[in-house]
């Protein structure tokens, strides 16, 4: 589609694995932040459409 690879993450975390959740969430956040703001699949504000 043209979405940068780093924006999509999959992980399997059991409800008991709280530390894994923290680690993964932190990693994902950092990875996405490093890519900067998303520009794809963003629709312009409607004011511009009309």
């Amino acid at each position: 589609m043209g979405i940068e690879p780093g924006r999509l993450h999959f992980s399997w975390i059991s409800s008991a694995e709280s530390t894994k959740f923290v680690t993964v969430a932190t990693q994902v956040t950092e990875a996405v932040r490093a890519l900067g703001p998303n520009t794809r699949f963003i629709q312009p504000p409607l004011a511009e459409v009309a």
Partner: protein
Amino acid sequence: MRMLLIDRRAWEEGLKRAAGDYRLIGPVKEKEFHSFRPLAAGQLPDFAFQNSRLSPKHVIYPQTEPMFTYTLEETREDRHLLREVVRDIPPTAVVGIRPCDAKAFVLVRLNFDTPDVQDPYWLRAYEATTFIGLGCNAPCGSCFCTTAGCGPFHEEGLDLLLAETAEGFTAKVLTAKGEAFARAAGWTKPAPEGTEAALQELARAAEGRITSFVQTEHLKSIPVNDLYHAPFWDEVSFACINCGTCTYSCPTCWCFDIQDETRGKAGVRLKLWDSCMYPLFTLHGSGHNPRGTKLHRVRQRFLHKLKYFVEKYDRGIQCVGCGRCVRLCPVNIDIRRVCNMMNGYAVSGEACAIP
């Protein structure tokens, strides 16, 4: 009726000059097909085409058109109120429209410009537009304009009619709008005596090249319920996949939908092309659908064009014979065949044999 002579140089320079006063729209080749697009500065319309892939109806009637905007921001005084979108339409000229497509607008106008209500979106665009027609010297094998109330040099709906010649064009000025455009383009050179006769000769020759026809003379008189219950609809509609290709490519199809789209707190009410081929077109909130099968929907399309319209307006069929639906239908449902079956049913009370 003034006849003008436009040589190649006058043509190019004239369009450049007219571009100062008009937004020019013309046929442009995109990949394999021609489409009607705004011409860039200095860009000439490309007349090396039989007809554009899709009709130029989008020039007057965009596929998606904002009607109103609104805000759902509760702090705003005008929340939930609809503000009309008035499209800024500069004087526009469609250069090189085929006579069939121009005539189509005349038929569509019957729907959008009625004695008691007018659709301002359609009408404003139509009134701002000048139609510079291009006579059709080489009609397609699937064109049937001459028996669909039109023709390769048909003048109805045009403001100026061009005929291509070896040196450039001859032009027939048909309306005040056409006169104004010719003035803006600086096309003033009168054509010599006999040009109009030559144009008629060209038209006759082009008409002679039409090889495909429809019969329509009995459509008006046959009772609508007889046609509605005719036995051939199952066979006619079988192949249909209920896509919107025929309706979207048709210059005379006008049906539309109205939808609200909101992003955040800002929204717009849109007018969008719709199609009688889609089940959703007529689906009731209750789940009931009066045209719930493809047989219903295919029958609706043909009856609308070839019967309801004929009865309602007495202006012939709602078709100009451009042949696009014939060429583009993915499963080869052919309006010419169906029209002739309907017309034939009026006489014989039975469907023609399947060819």
